[in-house]
């Protein structure tokens, strides 16, 4: 018997098979990463502690009721105005002497905060508040802090705070990261995010 050559395998359908697999993986792929508002919870303290004494003028109270309505500093407010109100509270700079704020541009109202280091925003929810509303309020308050931080970073270092953080987290950033970290830390010290959340009322 004469030895015959093995016939060539037809590879024409290989593309079809590969396409099938490709489409499957295309459909199941989720490339996008999650994003959201990051927060740090206070550590658990089982026993009741004496709350530190804080002057009323340094507290900015935001109450949200079960109908998703806002009560800010004992006045009814729409969510659209919250960011500006919080910003004005932080930037007030009503302190004198040791408590003076050297960069604030607010009017120095004696009934509002002395400086951003002392200012505390207190958020109280109702158990019936919708989560969407809560996130909107959180978002606006964080935005107020970022607005002030951006302004100061722009003044001191010539670029906004959000830009600095973005560059710090960018692995391809070629500048001096140590210096950048220092600058971010300085801004954070200048304007700390003091957002206190109380237990929800029922």
């Amino acid at each position, binding site marked *: 018997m004469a030895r015959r050559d093995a016939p060539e395998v037809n590879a024409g359908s290989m593309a079809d098979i590969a*396409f099938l697999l*490709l489409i499957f993986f295309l459909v199941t792929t*989720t490339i996008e990463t999650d994003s959201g508002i990051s927060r740090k919870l206070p550590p658990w303290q089982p026993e009741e502690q004496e709350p530190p004494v804080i002057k009323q003028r340094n507290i900015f109270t935001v109450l949200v009721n079960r109908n998703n309505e806002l009560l800010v500093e004992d006045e009814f407010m729409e969510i659209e105005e919250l960011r500006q109100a919080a910003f004005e509270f932080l930037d007030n700079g009503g302190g004198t002497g040791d408590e003076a704020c050297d960069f604030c541009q607010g009017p120095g109202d004696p009934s509002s905060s002395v400086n951003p280091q002392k200012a505390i925003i207190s958020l109280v929810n109702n*158990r019936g508040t919708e*989560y969407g509303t809560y996130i909107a309020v959180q978002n606006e308050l964080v935005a107020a802090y*970022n607005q002030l931080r951006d302004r100061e970073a722009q003044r001191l270092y010539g670029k906004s705070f959000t830009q600095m953080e973005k560059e710090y987290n960018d692995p391809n950033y070629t500048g001096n990261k140590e210096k950048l970290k220092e600058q971010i830390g300085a801004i954070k010290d200048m304007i700390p995010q003091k957002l206190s959340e109380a237990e929800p009322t029922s």
Partner: protein
Amino acid sequence: MSKFKKKTNEGQPAISTASLPDIVFMLLFFFMVVTVMRQNTLMVQNKLPYADQVEKLDKKDLVMYIYAGKPSPRYQERFGTEARIQLNDKFASVSEVQQFIFAERETKREELIPYLTTALKVDEETNMGLVSDIKQELRKAEALKINYTTLQGDALRNME
């Protein structure tokens, strides 16, 4: 002269498709590598709220997911319409959150534990009561880094 005439009659040669499988395979491998299969099947409604002051949540292996919301329509017959917590692939009660955190920590390397973040994927219609209960449990379990997962967009849209 005839030399030149011959060529004009031949027409366009067919494009070789021999390298097509190679190209497709290249794409295939790319998508195979970047694909992340969904870890959990959602059993709750999960329409996330919008926010624009967001930070990205990189390093997916360092994130623990807690879902909460109303049970999906096909589970409503058995579990009702009251908002529930979902951990892994099943509904859970508030008291099981701590257990879940400890179990998740067990699976991670020890030096990575301080970097673990808990992502709360909560439906926007959920009441804050449930969310605060989860937060209290997280505080007890010392999982203090949390992230409220949101969609990117104007936060005022949540109020509608």
